[in-house]
């Protein structure tokens, strides 16, 4: 089942995702302080930033899991900032997401995890859904023997692959990656990066990732944006990241403790 495309979605000039002045605070703590970002169709944008700078909050705001306090979020030109219920579910059908800890449903076997969006969201029959799930598992390098295992029987890298398979199984137009390489060894991280690049390219999808792993960011990004203190302080093509002329970006990509970014240590 595919969505009847709105006229706007056919217009190449409309950004796939458009954020304007998005703000979010939890009590007195301001997490997002006016974020503006346009992501074009088919583009892969990576948001970098330290831990606790609001990267996850930004993703969850776009997904509608959190409500921003101010600003607007547009998907294909449609304002989705405050939609709920059926409209939200319709908008969510365009999305796939790979969670940081994979977030697989541990009560279901691997294939039902992968086929979940097909069976629940698109009402595909179990038999067909299973076939498509096994095919998608193949696309991320997992054999059909994995399909009947429980997620808890898999290693971290395999869980990430299953999470990736689940995210892409419904052929989403937009895919989010939340720290896709965190907790993996460097080789497995690179395998996941390659898979992400391949899957996004094969689907022709728009991708938005958040990470603090620069090797991963360089590999999967077309453009990189840096989030610091609730604002995007630098946005540019990945090729310019080393010549950004921005002291904050330089400090972050070289991983130096000394520089304009001071880690907030509560002890004193």
């Amino acid at each position: 089942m595919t969505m009847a495309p709105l006229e706007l979605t056919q217009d190449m000039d409309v950004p796939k995702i458009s954020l304007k002045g998005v703000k979010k605070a939890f009590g007195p703590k301001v997490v997002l302080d006016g974020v503006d970002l346009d992501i074009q169709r088919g583009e892969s944008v990576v948001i970098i930033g330290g831990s606790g700078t609001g990267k996850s909050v930004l993703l969850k705001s776009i997904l509608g899991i959190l409500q921003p306090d101010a600003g607007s979020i547009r998907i294909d030109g449609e304002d989705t900032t405050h939609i709920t219920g059926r409209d939200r579910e319709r908008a969510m059908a365009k999305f796939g997401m790979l969670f940081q800890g994979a977030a697989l449903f541990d009560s279901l076997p691997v294939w039902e995890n992968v086929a979940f969006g097909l069976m629940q969201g698109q009402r595909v029959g179990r038999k067909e859904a299973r076939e498509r799930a096994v095919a998608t598992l193949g696309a991320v390098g997992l054999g059909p023997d994995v399909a009947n295992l429980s997620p808890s029987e898999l290693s971290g890298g395999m869980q990430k692959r299953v999470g990736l398979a689940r995210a892409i199984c419904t052929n989403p137009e937009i895919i989010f990656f939340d720290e896709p390489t965190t907790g993996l060894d460097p080789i497995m991280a690179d395998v996941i990066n390659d898979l992400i690049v391949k899957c996004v390219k094969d689907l022709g999808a728009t991708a938005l990732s958040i990470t603090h792993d620069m090797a991963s960011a360089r590999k999967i990004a077309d453009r990189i944006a840096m989030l610091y203190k609730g604002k995007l302080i630098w946005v540019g093509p990945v090729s310019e990241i080393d010549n950004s002329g921005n002291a904050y970006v330089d400090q972050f990509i070289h991983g130096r403790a000394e520089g304009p970014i001071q880690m907030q240590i509560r002890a004193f």
Partner: protein
Amino acid sequence: MNFLSAIGRATLTFLEATGRLALFTLTALAHCLRPPFYFRHIGRQMVEIGYYSLPVVGLTAVFTGMVLALQSYSGFSRFSAESAIATVVVLSITRELGPVLAGLMVAGRIGAAMAAELGTMRVTEQVDALTTLSTNPYKYLVVPRLIAGTTMLPILVMVADIIGVFGGYLVAVYRLGFNASSYINNTWQYLEFMDVVSGLVKAAAFGFVISLMGCYHGYNSRGGAQGVGAATTNAVVSASILILVMNYLLTGIFFS
């Protein structure tokens, strides 16, 4: 001034929690009525709550019935009112002890399991993952548990009533030497339809509260393993207290 601000803060926290619970309940009830319905999940929860709770509820009921018969014998024999034992056992079980004890046992068994499961799903982002897969977590997680809890507890209590009365019969006949047929006759004689029905209505209310507390605390748990632990404790404690309070209120409505 500190004293006043502490009272104010506690009041605000209480009102906030009440409001959040009310919103959660209304949202869940609204989703109960609108499709899609996850029948597989409703069935699975019914088996989990109804079938797997049978041993613990049955054991509770049989020993309660036995103790009731023993205790009322030792009391009533002082003024030769032994014939009232059967009536005391059946009325206590059907009206009060069946629903309340079954409710408390199920609150410990099921309320805790629900809070722990939903809490773990929340902190490992599985609840968020449902949303990204076009599935409403209320419909998928909360509604099946509410429906299963509300429908299964009356059935459990009906079984508990029968087993409890049977426990009383065992003690009366085999230990205290009552005549079996006259004991059964006494049991039926003063039992009214309303006694059983009131117990079953209570059971439905308790089942709803157990599922609601389990889901609410699990769904809103925060902060890793400790948060899930706190959610589990809160679910069991709040469900147990609500059961006792509601039992008093419902008894007042039925028998005043």
